[in-house]
C-alpha cells in the first residue's frame, strides 16, 4: 500500500515529463537532433537545393524564367492554359500565382537551418560555418525575387508560425537591407571552393553556392540599388578570378562543366533541366517578334540560342530525361557580371570601361565594336545587350525594365501586342488570395481585387 502510494506520487510528481517522452521518431529527426551531426545538418541544405531543383519554381512551366518572360516582352505564347495566358496578358490572378509559396518555403527552410545551426555546438566549425553561409545565401536569393516580383513583402526571419502568420509587408528598403547583410555574411562564411554534399571534399560541379556565388548576387543587388561602386567591386572580384571563371563559347555556356557558371542547379527529375523540357519538348513559347527585330543581323546567339524551327528558347539543348546528364540549370553566370559592371562603370563615369565590359559579351556573340559615345545611348546598348544575352533567363528582362523605369513605355506597346491592356500596377504580381484570406494583416497590391 505504502509502496503503491509512493510509486504513484513518484510517478506523478517527479517523472511526468519523462513518462510522456516518446523518444525520437525512427523516421527522420527533428530540430533537436538534426543539427547534432555534420551529415544530417548538411542534408538539410542538400534537401533545400533538391527542393529548388525539384519544385518547379526555378525552372519549367511555373518557373520564374518562364512566367516573368511571359509578363515581359520576351515571348510569343503558343498555348492556352490559364496560368500562361494570365501572365502573358499581364493580368495575373491572385488565385493562381505560383512563385510566392515556394520562395517562402525555401526561406522557412533557410531560417530553420540558420536557427538550428546557430544553436548547435556539436558540429565541425568549418562545416557549420559553410552551412550557415549557404542558408543565408538562399534566403537572400529568395527575398531578391520576392521583392522584385511582389514589391513589399513580409520579412520572415524566424520559424515561429504564430509570429509569421500575422506579419505585415515590410518596406522594400528593409528587405534589401537584409539581403545585403545576408550576402555579405555569406561571402565571408562560404569557402571559395565548390563542395560535395559531405561539405568536405571539393568537386568540379558548381551546384552549391560558394563565396563567389554570394559575391555575384551581391553585385546584382548593389546594381539594383544603384550602389555603383559596390557593384563594381563585387563584379570585379568575379571577373578578375580568371582561373575559375571565364566566358566560354556560346555552345558551351549551359553545360554542366561550364567555366562561366557561378552557381547551377543539378536536375533531379531525370537528367534534363526543367527549362529544356519546357522550352524544347513542350514548346509553349517562341521569341517575341519585337525581340527578333531588335537582334542584330550577325548576332550568333540567334543561331546558337534560338530554335531553328520557330525561334523558341534553345539555350538548353538536352531534353532527354534519360540520357546521361550534360547540362545543369544556370542560376548565376559570368556574362551577367560583365554587364553589371558595364552599367555600373557607365554610371560612375567610366564609359570606356563600361564599353569594354559590354564588348566582352558582344564579342562572343560575334558582334562588332559599337561606336557610341553618349551616356544615354550606351546605357541603352547595355540594356539591350542584357535583354538578348539573358533572354529567357530568370526574369532579367522583366526586372530590369522595372529597375530602369522603362516598364510603362515598353509594356504599353508590348502588352497591346500580346492582346492585353497595360496598367502601371501590373508591374507587380498580386499577393496570392489565400495568403490575404489567412493573414488579415497582409494587403493586396494596388489595382488587384482584394
Amino acid at each position, binding site marked *: *500500500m505504502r509502496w*503503491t502510494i509512493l510509486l504513484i506520487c513518484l*510517478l*506523478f510528481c517527479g517523472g*511526468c515529463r519523462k*513518462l*510522456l*517522452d*516518446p*523518444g525520437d*521518431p*525512427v*523516421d*527522420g529527426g*527533428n*530540430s533537436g537532433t*538534426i543539427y547534432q551531426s555534420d551529415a544530417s545538418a*548538411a*542534408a*538539410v*541544405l*542538400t*534537401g533545400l*537545393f*533538391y*527542393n529548388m*531543383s*525539384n519544385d518547379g519554381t526555378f525552372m519549367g512551366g511555373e518557373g520564374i524564367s518562364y512566367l516573368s518572360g511571359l509578363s515581359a516582352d520576351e515571348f510569343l505564347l503558343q498555348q492556352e492554359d490559364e496560368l500562361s495566358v494570365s501572365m502573358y496578358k499581364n493580368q495575373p490572378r491572385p488565385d493562381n500565382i505560383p512563385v*510566392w*509559396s515556394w520562395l*517562402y*518555403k525555401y*526561406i*522557412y*527552410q533557410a*531560417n*530553420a537551418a540558420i536557427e538550428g545551426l546557430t544553436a548547435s555546438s556539436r558540429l565541425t566549425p568549418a562545416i557549420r560555418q559553410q552551412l550557415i553561409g549557404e542558408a543565408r545565401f538562399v534566403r537572400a536569393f529568395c527575398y531578391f525575387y520576392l521583392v522584385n516580383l511582389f514589391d513589399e513583402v513580409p520579412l*520572415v526571419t524566424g*520559424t*515561429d*508560425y504564430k509570429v*509569421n*502568420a500575422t*506579419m505585415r509587408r515590410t518596406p522594400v528598403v528593409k528587405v534589401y537591407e537584409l539581403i545585403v547583410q545576408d550576402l555579405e555574411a555569406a561571402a565571408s562564411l562560404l569557402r571559395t571552393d565548390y563542395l*560535395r*554534399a*559531405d561539405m568536405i571534399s571539393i*568537386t568540379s*560541379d558548381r551546384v*552549391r553556392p560558394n563565396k563567389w556565388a554570394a559575391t555575384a548576387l551581391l553585385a546584382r543587388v548593389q546594381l539594383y540599388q544603384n550602389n555603383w561602386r559596390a557593384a563594381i567591386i563585387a563584379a570585379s572580384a568575379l571577373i578578375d578570378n580568371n582561373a575559375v571563371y571565364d566566358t566560354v563559347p556560346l555552345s558551351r555556356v549551359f553545360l554542366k562543366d561550364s567555366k562561366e557558371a557561378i552557381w547551377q542547379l*543539378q536536375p*533531379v*527529375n531525370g537528367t534534363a533541366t526543367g527549362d529544356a523540357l519546357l522550352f524544347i519538348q513542350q514548346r509553349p513559347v517562341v521569341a517575341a517578334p519585337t525581340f527578333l527585330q531588335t537582334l542584330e543581323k550577325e548576332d550568333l546567339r540567334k543561331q546558337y540560342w534560338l530554335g531553328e524551327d520557330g525561334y523558341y528558347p534553345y539555350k538548353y539543348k538536352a531534353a532527354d530525361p534519360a540520357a546521361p546528364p550534360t547540362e545543369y540549370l544556370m542560376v548565376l553566370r559570368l556574362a551577367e557580371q560583365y554587364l553589371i559592371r558595364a552599367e555600373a562603370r557607365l554610371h560612375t563615369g567610366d564609359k570606356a570601361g563600361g564599353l569594354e565590359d559590354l564588348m566582352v559579351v558582344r564579342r562572343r556573340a560575334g558582334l562588332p565594336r559599337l561606336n557610341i559615345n553618349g551616356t544615354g545611348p550606351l546605357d541603352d546598348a547595355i540594356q539591350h545587350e542584357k535583354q538578348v544575352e539573358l533572354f529567357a533567363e530568370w526574369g532579367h528582362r522583366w526586372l530590369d525594365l522595372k529597375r530602369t523605369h522603362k516598364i510603362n513605355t515598353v509594356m504599353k506597346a508590348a502588352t497591346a501586342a500580346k492582346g492585353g491592356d497595360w496598367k502601371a500596377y501590373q508591374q507587380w504580381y498580386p499577393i*496570392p488570395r*489565400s*495568403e490575404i*484570406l*489567412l*493573414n488579415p494583416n*497582409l494587403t493586396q497590391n494596388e489595382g488587384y481585387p482584394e
Partner: protein
Amino acid sequence: MGMPKPTIFFPLLLLLHACFWYQVEGQVYPSQKVTIVGRQVSLKDIFSQIEAQTHYYFSYNPAEVDVNRTLDVRFRKAALQDVLNTVLKGTYAWKLDDRSINVWRAPLVMAPKPSPLEMPDTPKLIMGKVLDETVIIGYGTTTQRFNTGNVTTVKGNFIAGQSGTNVLMALQGRVPGMLITQTGGVPGMAMKVQIRGQNSLVNGTQPLFVVNGIPYNPILTGGLGSQIWGDKASAFNFINAEDVESIDVLKDADATAIYGSRGANGVVLITTRKGQPGKTQLTVNVSRGFGQTSRKVKLLNTQQYIAMRREAFLNDGVIPTERNATDLLKWDTSRYTDWQKELTGGTASVTNVQASASGGNKSIQYLLSGHYRQEGTVLPGKFGDTRGGAYFSTSGASANQRFKAAFSGSFLADKTTLPGIDFTSKIMLPPNAPPAYLEDGSLNYSWLNPYIALAGPLFDAYVKNVLGNASLQYRLLPGLVARTTLGYNWLSGHSQTILPLAMYAPPTRDSKTGSLHNYDYKAISRIIEPQLNYVYQAGALRLEMVLGGTIQGYNETRKNINGDGFKNDLLIRDISYADTVYSKTEGASYRYAALFGRAGLNWKNRYLLNLSLRRDGSSRFGPRKQYATFAAAGAGWIFSEEPFMCHLRRVLSFGKLRLSYGTTGNDQIGDYQYLDQYSNVDGTYQGVVGLQPSRLFNADFAWELTQKSEAGLELGFLKDRLLFTASHFIYRSSNQLVAYPLPDITGAGSIIGNLPAVIRNAGWEFVLTARQFRTKTFEWASSFNISFGRNKLVYYPDPTIAIPGTSGFVEGKPLSQLYVATAMGVDPATGAYLFADANNHPVPAEDAVESLSVNSYPVFFGGWQNSLRIGRFELEVLLQFTKQTGINTTFDPSVMPGYPQNQYAVVLSRWQKPGDITDRQRYTQSPGLKEGYKKAIMSDLGYENASFIRCRYLEAAWLLPKGMQQRLHLHDSRVYIQAQNLFTLTSYKGLDPETQSRTAIPPLRVLSAGLKISL
C-alpha cells in the same frame, strides 16, 4: 397489499448465493428445513425459531451482530442455508461448526462473481442477459441492475463460432449503436468499427480496444505490405476467439469517461477465460467446414459481350481492327469462361481444433488451451491462413484470501499466404478471353492472363502475437484492496512479397529482373496500472471507490527492405542476391500517463450515483497541452424498488431510469504531430538524400472533446422474463483537430489546430430481451436490438477557408452527406446521359447541378437473435439488418460499357436507337461519353438501396444423450453444424451490400460441422 419480502429478495438471493459461494463451499450444509413467517421479525427471534426447529444453536458476538434488526420473512419448509443466507444478507457471514452456527460480520463482498455451477446444458442468453450477471466496466465490475452507464456485454458462448478468424465479427448485429463493417472475405482484411456515429471531422473514430487490461492497437498498420490486407489490416485477426470469455462495449460518458482522452469513440473491453474451482474439465472441440462466396453477380455471357462490343463500334462509327478489337478479331468469339466462377468460385476449407483443460480449487485455478485453425481461400491457387497457439491462465490466493494473484498469457503464430491481388478485380475479364493454360499445361502469357498472378506477385506473412498480463492484489483492511495490473503485448510480423521472373513470358525474361519486398513489423504495448479499491457499507448505503494510475507505452516500427535485380527465381527470397537494395523505416511511439478515480454510491439499492474523473497526459500533444481532465457523472433510480410501485411488481419486476453526462476525448491524430520534424526528400542531390522540414513546431493543439449525455430506461416485466432497454444519447464533439491552413509565408501550408466546429450525434437504441418459455424440455430466448443514429455538423466556423479533408461538409447536414447530380435518363436522340440543371431541365454533364443529397450512413441497423432448445436439440440464430444507401457498383468507375471489359448484365437495358427511353447510356468504345459517365456515377444513379438482412450466424446442436454421456464420463458434449452468412436478403445489385466493393471478395458463406466433447 403487502408483498412478501422474500419474493422481492428472489433476484438478490440469487446474487448473494453467488457471492457466498466461495464462503460456504467446502462446509457441511445444514440439511434441515425450517418454516418462519412474520412481519418485522427481529434477527434474534429468527435465530431462536431456528434453534427451536433444528438441533443447531447460534453463537455470535453481540457487539458485532445487531440481532435487533427486523425484517419481513416468509419461509415455508425452506432449506436452512437459504434462510440463513437471506436473513443475514450481505452484512453477516455464517459457518457451521458442529452444531453451532457461528455468525460474524462478513468481510465486505467484492463485486459478485458469476456462479460456476450454472446449469451447463441450457442455452445462455448472450445479450440482454439476466440483470445480475457480471458486467465488466473500466477498472471494476458491476451488474446491469446497478449500472448507471450504458454497457453491452457479449458472452463467450458463441463468440468463437460467429467470429471465424476475427473476434470483432462476434459483435456484428449484437451491440446496439456499434457499426461493424467488413471490407472483404479474406482473413485479416480491415474491419471498420464505429460506435454511435462519426465524432470527428477528419480523424480516426475507432473505439479504444482493451484486451485483458492492455490497450490493443486494432490495426496492423501497413498490412505488412499486402495489397489484399490493405493499409489497415485488422490486428484482431491474431487473437483466438475461443479464448475470449466476454466482450463488453462501453458507450456513454458514465462508462467511458474513466478512459478519458481515449474514450470518446467508446471502449471495447475483451476479457479472456479463467479457470474455475471445481472438477478438472477437459474440452475438445473439432470442426471442419467449407466456405464459398456468398453472392454472385450476373455478368454478360460471351454472346451478349460480343454483341456489346460490336454495337459499341457501330455506335462510334469505328471499324474494328486487330489493334482496337483484339477480343473481336483475334480471339475466339464463341469461347466462354465464367471468370467469376473460375477466379472466385472456389471452396475454402476451414479446419478448427481447440482443446482446453481447466480446474482448480479455492486457492488455485488454472486453464490451459491450445488451438489450430486452417482456412483456405476461394481464390485459385494454394492460398490461405494457418494458425496455432496456446493460452493459459492461472490464479491463486493465499489461505486467508488476503493476497490474490492472477496471470494469463497467450501466444499465437499465424502464417498467411495470399496472391498479390484480389482475383475479384479480374472477374470482369472478357468472357471470350483465351485459355489460361496452353495445351502443354504451361501458362498462356499471350494476354493479360489472371493466372499469371499465381506466379507472382506472391505474398506470405508470418505473424506472432504474445499477450501477457498479471494482476496482484492484497487486502490491506476490510474493504480496502490494493491492486496492480501489468500487461504486455508483442505483435510482430514478417512478410515477403516476391515478383519473380516467372511472371513474364519466357522469351522476355532475359530483359527482366525479379524483385523482393521484405516487410518487418513490430508493435509493443505495455501498461502498469496500480489501483486502490475501497468498499464501505453502512446500513443501506454502499460506497465503492477506485483510485488508480496508468503508465502506458506503445512502440511500433515498420521496416521495408526491397531488393531489385534478381536474375534467378530460386534465389529471390534472399536479399543478398539483389542488385540494388533500398529500405525505409517508419514508426510510431506513444506514451501515456493518467490518474483516475471513481466513486459509486448505492443507497437502499434504489438510488445510484457514480462519479468518475481522469487526469490524462498523452505524448501526442505538445508540451503545453499534454494534460487534460475528463469527468462524468451517472445517476440511476431503481424506481421499481419504491414502495409506491409495490402493486405493480407482479407485472413490472424491474424499472430503472438512468442519466449520465460527461466529457471524453479523442487523440487519434498520430504521433509526433507537435514536433518540428524533418523528413527525407524524395530523391538525391549530389548523390545524397537531403532532408526538409516536414512540420512546424506546434505546442498548442489539444484533445478533440466529446460531451456525451444519455438517458436510459430499463424495464423488466414478469419476473424479468422480458427486459426492455431504451437509450437516447446526444453527443456533441468539438475542438476538432484539423490541418488548419496557414499563410505560405510561414513556410508550411498548414498546422494542426483545434477548429471550433461542432458535430452532433444523436440517436436511439432499443433492446428487447425475452426468455419467453422455459420448461424442462423446451426453452426459447430471444433478443432484438435496433439503433437509429443521426449525425449533424452543427457549427462550422468559416467555410471559405479550405481545410484539407473537409471539403463537402455543410453546416446543418450530416458529415456523411454528399451532394450529387440528378440523372434524367439518357438523351433519346444520342444515348448520352442527361442530368438536371437548376431548373430541372435535362442538360449534359457539364451543366448539371449537384444538389441532390445522398447519405451513406445507415438509417437504422440491428440484430435479432434467437436461442431455442427442444429436448436435446439446440438452435441459435442471429439475423443482422441494416437499412442504408450504398454505392451502385454496377457502374465500373474506370471502364464504360462497350470497352473490352465485361459488364454487369444490367447494361443490357442500354440505349440502342434514337427514340429509346432508358437510363443506361449507349455502348461505346471511345472516350467521347466519359464526362457523362463519370457524372452518372456521381449522380443518384451511382447510389442504390444497400439495405440487407443477413443470417450472420446459425448453429444447430444436438446434445449427446445423458445416459451415453454418463457412460462415457462426458458432460456438455454435442455435435453441431454452424453456418456463417447463410443467406442475405437484399435488392442490392452488386457483390455485397456490406463491403460495397467491386474488387474485394465478399464475406464468405461458411458451413461447418463439429463435435465438442467435455470430460
